[in-house]
């Protein structure tokens, strides 16, 4: 299988969709002439024209809403937000409109729209630009939320998201764009709500998504050296959540550590831990531990920001609280 970067996987998924379905178009800020803030759509406007690749004004509420309208009229818009931090100015359109309009219309309207956005902290962008609002959006019924951790999953999930008749938030951790991974040459899709067991193990269940999975892999290796056999689960989507896989693993291991790269307080794992302890309490040999970013706004200073972010060592330390090694 060829190795490509996470960025190339997203670019490929978008290009495929544009080429195979006339009703697909992409819009967002500076995705055209500028080539995209993260160069995902570099060269697209030259290749596909400005009908399919639409540069928008800096009006997230209007163009997200326009995406909903275009979708409700039969198109399949892919909307890029320059950062998921900027989703806040469009939150009413995303939460109250995109997710609710089908229900409010009694099923008359569908909204086949993907909202792609880089997410996550770690490059010193400060308090307003380092957020992970996919954790909130994943709690809204009427939408889905995918959070791939590698190029192969990114392509498979993006294909599914674009083909979905529902709004899908597609959160891409900015740290991953340059990371490489194998991608099958034959066409495949990955359904939303199907976790992937990144690594099988019997002693401890580790759960995360997106960039967090890389931290877990590192933690699992560190622990295996100490004879702890970790099972690492990559949720791949935080809405829907594949509880079957997570609960089965916890029933096997009796212990779990769950990781958000987002803030621990209010991260996606708050919901998942509560749910899993309820479903699997009888199998638990200790509390389900949560690891995530510390509960402060994002600081600019590198040392502070790095200290706020969760590390493999934090995961190991949390594991140590439920399993002595």
């Amino acid at each position, binding site marked *: 299988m060829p190795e490509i970067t996470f960025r190339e996987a997203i670019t490929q998924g978008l290009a495929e969709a544009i080429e195979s379905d006339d009703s697909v*178009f992409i819009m967002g800020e500076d995705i055209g002439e500028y080539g995209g803030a993260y160069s995902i759509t570099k060269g697209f406007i030259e290749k596909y024209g400005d*009908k399919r690749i*639409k540069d*928008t*004004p800096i*009006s997230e*509420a*209007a*163009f*997200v*809403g*326009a*995406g*909903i*309208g*275009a*979708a*409700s*009229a*039969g*198109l399949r*818009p892919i909307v890029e937000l320059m950062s998921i931090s900027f989703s806040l100015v469009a939150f*009413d*359109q995303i939460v*109250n*409109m995109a997710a609710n*309009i*089908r*229900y*409010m*219309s*009694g*099923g*008359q*309207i*569908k*909204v*086949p729209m993907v909202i792609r956005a880089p997410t996550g902290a770690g490059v010193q962008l400060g308090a307003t630009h380092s957020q992970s609002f996919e954790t909130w959006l994943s709690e809204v*019924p*009427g939408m889905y939320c995918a959070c791939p951790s590698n190029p192969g999953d990114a392509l498979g999930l993006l294909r599914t998201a674009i083909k*979905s*008749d*529902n709004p899908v938030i597609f959160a891409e951790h900015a740290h991953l764009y340059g990371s490489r991974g194998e991608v099958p040459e034959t066409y495949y899709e990955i359904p939303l709500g199907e976790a992937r067991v990144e690594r099988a193990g019997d002693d401890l269940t580790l759960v995360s998504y997106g960039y967090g999975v890389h931290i877990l892999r590192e933690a699992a290796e560190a622990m295996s050296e100490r004879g702890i056999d970790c099972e690492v689960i990559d949720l791949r989507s935080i809405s829907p959540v594949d509880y079957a896989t997570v609960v089965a693993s916890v029933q096997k291991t009796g212990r779990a550590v769950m990781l958000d790269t987002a803030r621990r307080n209010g991260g996606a794992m708050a919901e998942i831990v509560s749910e899993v302890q309820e479903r699997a309490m009888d199998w638990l040999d200790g509390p389900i531990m949560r690891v995530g970013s510390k509960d402060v706004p994002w600081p600019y200073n590198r040392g502070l920001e790095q200290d706020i972010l969760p590390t493999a060592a934090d995961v190991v330390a949390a594991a140590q609280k439920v399993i002595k090694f």
Partner: protein
Amino acid sequence: MEQAEKPRISATGIVRPAFTGSAPQASSNNGFDPTRSQSLSESIDNSELLRMYRLMLLIRRFEETCGQHYSLGHVRGFLHLYVGQEATGIGAITALEPRDYIVTHYRDHGHAIARGIDTNRIMAEMFGKRTGLSKGKGGSMHIFDVAKRFMGGHAIVGAQLPLAAGIALAQQYMNTDVVTMVFFGDGATNQGTFHETLNLASVWQLPVIFFMENNLYGMGSAVGRVRHRGSDFSDAMGAYDIDVVSVDGMDVLAVREATQAAIDNVRAHGSPIFIEAKTFRFVGHSFADPGDQYRERSEVDLWRRRDPLSTYPKQLIEYGIATESDFEKLSASVDDEIAAAVEFAINSPDPDLSEAFDDIYA
């Protein structure tokens, strides 16, 4: 520059001078224009003129009936009545083709009826019944009928505007000649989405008509208290280079003709137009609001004297288009239709509890 070539709607000449100012001019002729030829309208035939009246009456009775059933507890939630604004909705919406799209806000029954949506199913939705347009899940503020290209009924002020721009974008994308008309109030012009959407529609030259029903109040706020220029919107589109058409919203024919001209223009040139109709709601903002603490009784009375449901039929008689007995028949048929709608709603089943979990995902 492109828009230099674009014919100005104001230059089409058929838009009569706008009715401005917050109170009706004493001189107002309520749409009766003696300088006109013998027929009341050159462009609209008599049966259509009569149909328009019937629809206005249908809205009025529908709204009054909703009010009664709100008091009875059959209709719940927020109920925003269209009483007084009928001439605006009928004049605007009857000018549209079936292929055109409509998007509106929570004060939407009038627009739905004007579009010819089945009153049974609207009423059933008001009652929250399974036979309602949204299966009882939407209610008064969320009337949808996609088959009629009626895309809601939206309850967050200004939120419907980007949606309309997107529908218009889809028409431009698919190269249709379909027009999208979006309704909103004077208060909605305070929202950021208003500006963002107008900017988007103008820079992309989208085939959309922004139809503002300026009823002079946003809930309890007189437009003059939330907008420095008050109810004068003549300069409001300067930033967007969008034509402004101002029309007397109490004059159904003025609205119909101005809107028709705007629709033709948008269909032909694809660029957006802003229509402002000055109108008035005779009742409170919602059924919870008596509507008297923030405006003078005298102001309401002044407007009630221009009630299109009394002025328009007078015109129809003056021009020999209808007789009193025609009106009696019409009135009876409207009453029958409303009574049937209420009966349909009352006799319809509530949704099954399990249905709460349907229609979330496609």
